[in-house]
């Protein structure tokens, strides 16, 4: 594969590091005019309204400029005019594949400000839901990444699994994507009867079907041909661009909030962080796939730990965070999600800043795409997992 990689790649000039212009070396003897190809905002590969302008030399990418903002909904400003319960319902929606994990961050932030004690059972339920949500998210990307590489089938399998899990989560939360299950102080209502049993069943089934994805996608030589060595991300670049989550783990760095600074009860159980070696597209996919298995392990542990008791603590009718500020970070499916919550003591935040993983992760795209072929550009675009709403907010 790599013998095609005749191009020396450099950091885009806006990234920390030396200031180098785009330059293609070893360009051959048929210099041709550049073509600028706009992929998106409505293009099948961009899953959402994301646009990327490629400067093409034949099928080789000379430069890539992501154009974001087509989906900007002003979340941070909206949040300043909503109380904390409403913010939880809002944050569901910026990364619509990880609704639960998003609202979890808000709940933890508010609780920390209020110094609120959250019942044990609520924390375990939150973990259980967060891990199921993680699997939901990863299944989506596994399906869509395979689809971007032209394999249609994994998408259908992934959606079959997603349907089971969504049904499970719906039975407890009432929602399929936007769960709105967290509230400051715990979760809204306890699990329905039989939930844990079904959860264990689905965990078992999903684990059994895991091999299908390994055989169908990960082990496939064509898939490996399309991904191994494509878009390798060096560790230092990843760190300097603030990349987190599976994209970072693929480079071999095990920075995961669940392990490094455990929240909820993650400290009480074993959390495995699958790691890659080269940070290429294959490793990114590998990490994503194995995170499903890791999450299933966590879920099984949670089943064994689930205590009895209340699931929420009594709150005043109007939650008012005391004056002050806090930064809370949680490990979202796509990377670290940070919420900066600043309160002037009122019922709404004075400032609500989001540090979303997708926004940081797309910073890697211009770097990764330099010198890639057009089909590789798609492979790279798909392997840097992002949700457009999470970029634009």
């Amino acid at each position: 594969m790599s013998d095609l990689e005749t191009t020396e790649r450099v950091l885009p000039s806006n990234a920390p590091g030396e200031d180098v212009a785009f330059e293609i070396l070893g360009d051959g003897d048929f210099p041709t005019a550049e073509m600028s190809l706009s992929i998106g905002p409505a293009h099948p590969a961009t899953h959402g309204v994301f646009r990327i302008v490629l400067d093409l030399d034949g099928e080789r990418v000379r430069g890539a400029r992501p154009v974001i903002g087509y989906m900007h909904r002003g979340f941070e400003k909206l949040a300043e005019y909503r109380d904390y319960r409403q913010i939880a319902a809002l944050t569901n929606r910026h990364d619509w594949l990880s609704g639960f994990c998003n609202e979890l961050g808000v709940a933890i932030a508010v609780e920390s400000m209020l110094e609120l004690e959250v019942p044990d059972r609520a924390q375990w339920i939150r973990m259980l839901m967060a891990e199921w949500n993680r699997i939901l998210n990863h299944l989506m990307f596994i399906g869509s990444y395979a689809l971007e590489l032209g394999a249609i089938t994994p998408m259908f399998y992934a959606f079959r699994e997603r349907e089971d899990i969504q049904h499970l989560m719906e039975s407890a939360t009432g929602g399929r994507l936007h769960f709105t299950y967290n509230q400051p102080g715990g979760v809204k209502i306890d699990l329905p009867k039989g939930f844990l049993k079904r959860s264990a069943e689905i965990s078992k089934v999903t684990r059994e079907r895991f091999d299908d994805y390994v055989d169908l996608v990960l082990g496939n030589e064509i898939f490996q041909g399309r991904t191994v060595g494509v878009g390798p991300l060096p560790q230092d670049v990843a760190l300097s661009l603030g990349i987190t989550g599976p994209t970072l783990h693929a480079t071999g760095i095990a920075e995961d909030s669940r392990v490094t600074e455990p929240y909820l009860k993650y400290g009480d159980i074993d959390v495995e962080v699958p790691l890659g070696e080269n940070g290429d597209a294959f490793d990114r996919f590998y990490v994503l796939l194995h995170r499903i298995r890791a999450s299933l392990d966590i879920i099984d542990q949670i089943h064994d730990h689930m205590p009895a008791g209340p699931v929420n603590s009594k709150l005043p009718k109007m939650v008012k965070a005391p004056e002050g500020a806090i930064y809370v970070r949680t490990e979202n499916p796509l990377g670290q999600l940070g919420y900066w919550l600043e309160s002037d003591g009122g019922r709404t935040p004075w400032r609500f800043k989001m540090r979303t993983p997708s926004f940081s992760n797309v910073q890697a795209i211009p770097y990764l795409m330099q010198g890639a072929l057009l089909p590789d550009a798609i492979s790279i675009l798909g392997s840097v997992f992002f949700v457009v709403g999470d970029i634009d907010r």
Partner: protein
Amino acid sequence: MAQTSLPGTGLLKGLAVTVKHLFKRPATLMYPYERNELAPRTRGVIALMDENCTVCMLCARECPDWCIYIDSHKETVPPAKEGGRARTRNVLDRFAIDFSLCMYCGICVEVCPFDALWWSPEFEYSEYTMDALLHEKDKLREWADTVPPPPALDEGAEAPAEVTEAIAKAEKELEAAAQKEADKAAAAEAATTEAKAGGSGPKKADEPKVAAGEIDQETYDALIAEGKSERIARSKAKAAYVKKEKARLKAEADAGGGDAEAAPTPKAADIKVEAGQIDQETYDALIAEGKTERMARAKAKAAWVKKEKARLAAEAESAAGAGAPAGEEAEPPSPTDAAGSDQAPSTDAPAEEPAATRKLGDVHVEGTGEIDQETYDALIAEGKSERIARAKAKAAWVKKAKQAKLDEEGGA
């Protein structure tokens, strides 16, 4: 990581996976012909029981995208008694939800203090234009009929406030009755307590309320020995404890209520106070009175528990009349019984009218949401939320009213 033993194995495995699925049942649900069973909590559409709505506007104010439209006017209600003061109340003219704006967060349902808004799993209300998604209260009222009963909670869950309160109340009443007669039969009580003490766990004999979280150590050990997981054992042991404890309380009450020999303890396994059982009669009556469904259900539940206990007591009495020895009947439940406690043996038992003396729970009082201000203020002062305080105050009012009525009757 990208290793395969032989080139082409990966390709063959891909073929194997797909051909394996060729012979599997498709996962498709043939939607218009088959329907998915949606969970009761599914947030499909918001239903309105407009008779419960007091036009407090909380939902409209809390809605993050302001999609609820409410119009109302004030109406003067003539005084209930002559010479009383005329009161005004709000009358709902319009209640509309724009489902093209709604983001289905459920905050309105959550904040509604009078249980006027409910989630229904209905979802097939798509329209060809966005305007048509603005639904008025007639339509919202229709959906209210599709609201399913809430699902039972997980074993490890704390029972909902309504249920715990109702149970606690019923048990308090029983205990009060027992206390009343305790002087008459102190010796008998002591004997019964002793007889029960062997099997009823390490709890205090006079604990009035069955606290969640206690476990029946015996059952627990037995289950662990059987190789069950700790979690399962704990939950079952908990259930066993609750059952035993209730049996014990019941026994105490019965013992207090009558002759020691004539009032043997009913079989512990028969008393299964399962949350969710409701007394249909009470329920219907309350609904007919215009109570909210939730309140009616809670009360009916309490009524059921009471009736059931009364029935069991009556049974036990008659059994004692037939000369059954008390000690043998009062076996402690075995671990297997405890393990099987998920099945409710008394579910189908007819709710007979108890022949016992009138107790507090039998008294029926009219009430439409009055609250006991004293209790309310006390609770608010304690820092409880308004909603909880109101609910408790309401309960307190009902209790007081009943007590008053009972006293009146007794006096008569």
